[in-house]
C-alpha cells in the first residue's frame, strides 16, 4: 500500500527559470579557425606571408618614396644620368650600394681625372687597356663639366652644355639666389643657345631641387630610377594577377557549379565548349588578341580569362557531382530549398576546401606567365615597364650594369617563392585529409 504524499511537499526545482542551451565552455573552432590554427604552425608559410604582404604594400607605396622626377620633367637632363650604379648613403658600407663601377679603357682616359674619382686599378689586359674602379657619380659629374680630352688636352666636347636662353636665365637666377657658382665657363649666345660648361650636379641641385643624386637600385639606360620603375612594374603585375584570378574564380565557380549541378544537356554543351577552348594554346590566344586589339592591360586580362577559368570550372563541376546526390542535399530539397539555395548554402561550402586548395596556387601561376611573356616582349604595356621587361632590358646590359638585371630578378624570385610557400601552407591548412596528422 502506497503512502500518499501531500502534493504541497513537492517543490519544483526550476520553477521560474527558463532553461537555455549552455554556451560552450571552450571557444568553438570553426572550419576557417581550424585552418588558421594549422596555417600558423607552418613557420615557412607565415614568413612567406609576411614577405608577400611587404612586397604588395611596397608595390602600392614604393614609388612614393622616390622624389626623383627628372625623367618625367626633362629627358634632356635625365638621359645624362643613364646606367648609374646603385648608391645609397646609409647602405654605403655594402659593396653593391657605393655607386662604384668598373670602367675599361686606355690609361690616358683616366690619367686626367682629378683625385677621388679613380679608386683603384683592377687589372691590365693584353692590349694595354686598364680596368679601373671609379666613383661613377663623381665621374659623371666630372664628365659633363670638366673632362679633358686626352688627345687635345683641352676640355672635351662632353664637358660643354648647350643651354637655351630660358635655361641660361634660370641658371643665372639660381646662382644669384643661392650664391653659388654653376656656370664654370661662360659663353656668348649663339643661335639661341649658350654653349657653356656647368657644374652638372650643382645645376641639378639648384635648378631642379635634387639635393642628392642617388639611385637606390641604380638607373636604367634612359635615366629612369629603377627603384620606382620596379615597384610600378610590380604594381601592374599584381594588379593583373589579382584581377585575372578574381574573374577566373568567379566565372569558373559559376560555370562549374551550374554544369555540375544541373548536368544533362547544359553539362554536355559546356564540356564540348571547354574541350575546344582547352585545345587552344594560351600563346596563340595571347598573340592573336594582342595583334587584334593592341597593347592594353585589358587585352592581357582578356587573354588570361579566355581559358583560365577552365581548370577551376572542371574542379567545381566534379565537386558538385560528388555532393549533389548526398542525403543532406536531399534533406534540404525535401524541406523545400530552391536550387540556388542548395547550390550555394549546402553544396558549395563542402566543396570550398578543395577549391581554395587549387585556387591559391593559381595567382602565382598568373604572375609567372605574365612575367614570362613580358620578358619575351610579347606583352608590352608601353609607358609602364613590367618586371619581365625590366629583366629583358637588364639582360642586354648585364655585363656592365648587372644591377639592372639583379634587382628585378630578386624581386620576381622572392615574389614567386613567397607566393608558392604561402599557397602551399594554405593548401595544407585547408586540406582536411591532413587533419590530425601532426607535421
Amino acid at each position: 500500500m502506497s503512502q500518499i504524499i501531500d502534493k504541497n511537499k513537492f517543490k519544483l526545482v526550476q520553477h521560474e527559470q527558463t532553461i537555455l542551451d549552455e554556451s560552450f565552455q571552450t571557444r568553438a573552432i570553426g572550419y576557417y579557425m581550424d585552418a588558421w590554427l594549422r596555417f600558423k604552425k607552418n613557420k615557412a608559410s607565415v614568413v612567406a606571408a609576411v614577405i608577400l604582404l611587404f612586397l604588395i604594400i611596397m608595390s602600392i607605396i614604393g614609388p612614393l618614396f622616390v622624389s626623383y622626377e627628372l625623367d618625367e620633367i626633362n629627358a634632356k637632363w635625365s638621359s645624362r644620368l643613364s646606367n648609374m650604379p646603385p648608391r645609397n648613403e646609409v647602405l654605403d658600407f655594402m659593396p653593391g650600394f657605393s655607386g662604384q663601377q668598373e670602367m675599361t679603357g686606355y690609361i690616358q682616359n683616366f690619367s686626367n681625372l682629378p683625385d677621388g674619382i679613380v679608386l683603384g686599378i683592377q687589372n691590365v689586359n693584353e692590349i694595354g687597356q686598364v680596368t679601373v674602379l671609379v666613383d661613377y657619380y663623381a665621374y659623371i659629374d666630372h664628365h659633363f663639366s670638366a673632362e679633358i680630352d686626352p688627345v687635345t688636352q683641352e676640355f672635351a666636347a662632353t664637358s660643354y652644355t648647350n643651354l637655351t636662353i630660358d635655361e641660361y636665365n634660370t641658371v643665372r637666377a639660381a646662382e644669384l639666389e643661392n650664391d653659388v657658382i654653376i656656370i664654370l665657363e661662360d659663353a656668348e649666345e649663339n643661335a639661341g643657345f649658350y654653349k657653356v660648361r656647368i657644374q652638372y650636379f650643382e645645376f641639378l641641385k639648384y635648378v631642379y631641387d635634387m639635393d642628392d643624386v642617388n639611385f637606390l637600385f641604380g638607373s636604367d639606360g634612359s635615366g629612369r630610377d629603377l627603384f620606382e620603375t620596379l615597384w610600378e612594374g610590380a604594381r601592374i603585375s599584381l594588379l593583373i594577377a589579382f584581377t585575372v584570378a578574381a574573374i577566373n574564380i568567379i566565372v569558373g565557380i559559376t560555370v562549374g557549379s551550374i554544369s555540375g549541378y544541373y548536368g544533362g544537356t547544359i553539362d554536355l554543351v559546356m564540356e564540348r565548349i571547354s574541350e575546344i577552348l582547352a585545345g587552344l594554346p594560351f600563346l596563340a590566344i595571347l598573340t592573336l588578341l594582342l595583334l587584334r586589339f593592341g597593347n592594353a592591360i585589358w587585352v592581357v586580362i582578356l587573354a588570361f580569362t579566355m581559358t583560365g577559368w577552365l581548370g577551376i570550372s572542371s574542379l567545381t563541376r566534379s565537386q558538385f557531382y560528388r555532393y549533389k546526390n548526398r542525403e543532406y542535399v536531399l534533406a534540404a530539397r525535401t524541406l523545400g530549398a530552391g536550387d540556388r539555395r542548395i547550390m550555394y548554402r549546402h553544396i558549395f561550402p563542402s566543396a570550398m576546401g578543395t577549391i581554395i586548395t587549387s585556387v591559391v596556387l593559381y595567382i602565382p601561376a598568373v604572375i609567372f606567365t605574365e612575367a614570362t611573356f613580358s620578358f619575351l616582349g610579347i606583352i608590352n604595356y608601353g609607358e609602364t615597364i613590367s618586371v619581365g621587361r625590366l629583366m629583358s632590358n637588364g639582360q642586354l646590359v648585364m655585363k656592365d650594369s648587372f644591377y639592372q638585371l639583379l634587382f628585378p630578378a630578386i624581386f620576381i624570385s622572392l615574389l614567386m617563392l613567397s607566393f608558392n610557400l604561402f599557397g602551399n601552407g594554405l593548401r595544407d591548412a585547408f586540406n582536411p585529409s591532413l587533419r590530425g596528422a601532426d607535421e
Partner: protein
Amino acid sequence: MRNYVLKRIALIFVTAFIIIFLVFVFIKKLPQYHAAVLGVYPEIRIILEEQEGYGKPIVEQFFIWIQNLVKEGGLGRSLKLKRDITDILAEKIPVSFRLNVFPYFAGIPVGIGLGIWAALKKNKLTDHIISTGVIFFISVPSFVIGTMMQYYVVYIWKLIDTPFVFSETDFAANNLLGIASYLMPMLVLFFGTVASLTRVMRAELTEVLTSEFMLLARTKGLTQRQSTVRHALRNGLVPIAPSLIGGLVSLLSGSLIIERIFRVPGIGGIYLDAFNNFDYSLLMALIMFYTIIGLSATLIVDLSYGVIDPRIRMGAGKR
C-alpha cells in the same frame, strides 16, 4: 579498348579542325592582314593571293588552305622570311627537339630518384633539403636562372666566352666549344624537369607509402626495400608515367623562353619573329603546330593511362 582509342582519335581531329578554323578566321579578319602583303612585288603578290584564294569567302579560303596542306603538304609561304613554311618547320623543329631531348631524358631518372629518396626520408634532413631545392627551382622563373647563369658563367667565372649558343658555322668550326655553349640552356631545362618531377614523385609516393596495402606488405614479411620497389613504386608511378610519355610530344615544340635567352635558332624564336613581323601565314602554321602538339600530348597521356593501368579510361563515358 580499340573502339575507345578510335573514338578519342576521331574526337581529336574534330577539336583540332574547329580550333584551326576559328584561328584561321580570326587571323584573316585582323585589320592589318592585307597591309602585311603590300611590301611584295605585285606579280608575286598576285600569284600568292591566288594560291591563298584571296578575295573569296573565308570559308572557301580555309578549304583552299586545307587542300594545299593535304595535297602538297604546303602551309603557304612566309612573306618576311621569303621561304616555304614547311621548309622552315622542317629546319627548326629538329633544333628545338635536339635541345630539349637530352635534358628531358637526363632529368627523368634524377627526378624520380630524388623524389623517391625524399619520400622515403620524409621529414628528415634529406627531405627538407630536396624539398627546398624543389620549391626554389619551381618558383624561380627559368629566365631568372638562365640569365643569372649567363652572368656568372660568362662574365664572372669566365668559363666560356659567349652567353649564347653557337651558330651553325661556329659550331662546325669548333665542335667542342659549340657543345659547351649548349650546356647552359640544357642545364636550365634539366633543372626544370628534375624539380617538377621530384615534386610529383615525392607527393605520389608519400601517399602510396601510407596506404593500407603497404602495411600488409610489411606484415607479410617483405623488407622495406621489397615492399617499396614492388608495391609502392609501381603504384606511385601510375599517374607519373603517362605525363612523361605525353611530355615526349611536347619536346618538339621547344621552349620560347630558353630559346630567347640563349638565342637558340629553334621554333620558339620563329614564333616570336612571326609575331613581331606580323607574318600571318607563318603564325597560322605555328599555331596549328602548337595546337596539334598540345592535343596529341593530351591524347597520349590519356591513352597511356589505360595502357599502364587498365582500370582507367580517361574521357570515357560513365558506366
